[in-house]
């Protein structure tokens, strides 16, 4: 991965951090003003420890009220931890709340100038930075009109453009990647991907798991201010989604060693031997998909086979899966196998009896070797040529 050198300091780190808020009841004000501590506290975060290596994004998943925004502000320095330590290796570009420090009567340009006067321009010339903001937000002449004349989408575009225009080192993002219409969202994602490619690090707090998959290498789940799980992003997302575990009744045998990938040369046959042991007296179907994970884009289904009947009845079945002349170019791909049963042939619904897939935390890997080529597939084209009759 570009920029993630393990010997360098982490970009962001929390070590046993706690955050406590004081809850002020009606009687507490006088206590407070006479310098006594309020009694009631709210433990917003407890025992938060994690590290974000340089050049990586880290996802923080959680429901509303779990403490994601508090954690982000803790990392960005807006709050101080009541216990423990929090560390960011450099200035953070914090996008918690769009439009901070704004005032409706300011023009877009005045807002941007005010923002940069508070946050700094990291050495760049103010004029150049403002030009980039206008260009990215596509506000045109509205840039010099007061913000109260903008639509909410335009205001969102202005704030997002201003917050992300400087190539920051560390981004702390709180749910704001969904600003604007589809076109602008696409632009925003492109911008975040290019920042990522430039080696940016960051923390993304969200309940949108697809965002975490698209951008993050690792993630954690926050629940009631505590970390309940931490690890590789796909596994965490699966856990967050509480995807149903397989029901059992039949299972793949011998596919548990996932450290050895299936190796195949490009355009050669891929043959995989499967052993299935079944305890149910039903037709067994297997679904297959090959996916690739591209940073900044997400999981892409490349090849998929809908569940197909491969056997029936109790006992042990030997199955060979053959992909003749696999068209994939060199690279590492994820292979997902689903063993399903269709209880009612008339109804198009499946029970997953067993699975080896990323969404169950047990994905298999296919390693395709061969010459480096652009694209994921070789297009299997046949040419033919006939003489055209002279006119």
């Amino acid at each position, binding site marked *: 991965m570009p920029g993630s050198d393990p010997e360098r300091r982490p970009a962001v780190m929390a070590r046993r951090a706690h955050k406590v808020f*004081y809850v002020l009841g009606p009687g507490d004000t006088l206590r407070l*003003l006479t310098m006594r501590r*309020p009694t009631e506290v709210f433990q917003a975060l407890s025992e938060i420890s994690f590290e974000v290596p340089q050049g990586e994004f880290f996802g923080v998943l959680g429901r509303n009220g779990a403490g994601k925004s508090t954690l982000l502000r803790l990392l960005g320095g*807006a709050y*101080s931890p009541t216990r423990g330590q929090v560390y960011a290796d450099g200035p953070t570009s914090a996008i918690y709340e769009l439009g901070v*420090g704004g005032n409706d009567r300011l023009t877009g340009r005045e807002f941007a100038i005010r923002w940069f006067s*508070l946050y700094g321009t990291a050495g760049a010339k103010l004029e150049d930075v403002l030009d980039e903001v206008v260009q990215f937000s596509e506000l045109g002449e509205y840039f010099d009109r007061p913000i109260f004349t903008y639509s909410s989408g335009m205001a969102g575009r202005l704030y997002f453009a201003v917050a992300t225009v400087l190539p920051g080192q560390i981004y702390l993002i709180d749910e704001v990647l969904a600003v604007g219409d589809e076109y602008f969202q696409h632009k925003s994602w492109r911008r975040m991907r290019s920042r990522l490619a430039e080696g940016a690090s960051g923390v993304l707090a969200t309940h949108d798991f697809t965002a975490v998959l698209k951008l993050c290498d690792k993630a954690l789940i926050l629940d009631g201010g505590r970390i309940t799980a931490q690890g590789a992003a796909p596994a965490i997302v699966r856990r967050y989604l509480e995807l149903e575990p397989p029901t059992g009744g039949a299972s793949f045998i011998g596919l548990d060693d996932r450290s050895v990938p299936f190796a195949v040369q490009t355009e050669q046959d891929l043959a995989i031997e499967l052993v299935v042991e079944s305890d149910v007296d039903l037709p067994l179907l297997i679904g297959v998909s090959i996916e690739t994970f591209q940073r900044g884009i997400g999981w892409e289904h490349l090849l998929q086979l809908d569940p197909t009947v491969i056997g029936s009845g109790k006992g042990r079945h030997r199955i060979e899966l053959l992909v003749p002349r696999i068209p994939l170019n060199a690279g590492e791909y994820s292979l997902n196998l689903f063993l399903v049963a269709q209880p009612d042939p008339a109804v198009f619904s499946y029970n997953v009896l067993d699975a080896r897939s990323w969404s169950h935390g047990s994905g298999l890997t296919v390693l395709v070797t061969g010459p480096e080529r652009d694209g994921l597939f070789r297009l299997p084209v046949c040419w033919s040529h006939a003489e055209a009759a002279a006119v």
Partner: protein
Amino acid sequence: MTLSLPALHPRTVLGFGRHDLRLLFNLTNMALRDRFLGSAVGRVWALLNPLLLLLIFSFVFSFVFKSRLPGADNSLSFIIWLISGYGPWLAISEGLSTSASSIIGNSGLVKNLSFKCELLPMAASLLGLVPLGVSFLLLAVLLALGGHAPTAAWLIIPLVLVLQFTLITGLGLFLGAINVFVRDVTQILPNLLVVLLFASPIFYSVDAFPEGLQFWVQLNPFYLVSNGYRVPLMYGVLPPLWQLALLTAIALAMQVGGLAYFRRLKGYFDARL
């Protein structure tokens, strides 16, 4: 043997570094813009408002009430006397009102930007420089008209200015912090300031008080400030040194106390903002 450099500590004064000074400047600009952002006349109102107040009070006290300085029959010298006391009061009033609401008015910044939010009331109190500047300009014109030449005593005026703003900043820190929890402060403050204005010898001389009370009245720091400007400008001599010493003591106590109080309370702001 190698020499090792001592650890570099960033230079701080009262807990503020150089970066904070630049931020203070930016926040003051922001406060100034925000104060007059909605008005049609814009920033001109910042100058026009104090000017109108000074003129109307001069008119009412001088021509309607026919107040005169004891021993003089001259309305011009009374007006100079009035403005040199009332001008600083406008600065105090403006500074205190804006700093009281500075935290809750900028709650977005306090909650999201990582900075020393003590700077907000401090920047707000500096807004008082605007009406003060207007009154100085007016005074300059009137003094020239009255034929008063600058004297050496005028050199004390910058010191009084610094002391005045130290005082306002300190008080502003107290008010700004308390107002987060007791929002009535911004409601009560305008009335309180009016009461203080008329209770202090600003429109009238100290002699108007009975003998026994006169000493206690002179302990009023707002009186000390206006006297600090008034005496050099009117009479060309320094104000009594004990008054300057007392003002210095009160201003420093307010500044240090205000900072300490604010910093103790700011950890709890997030419970109310």
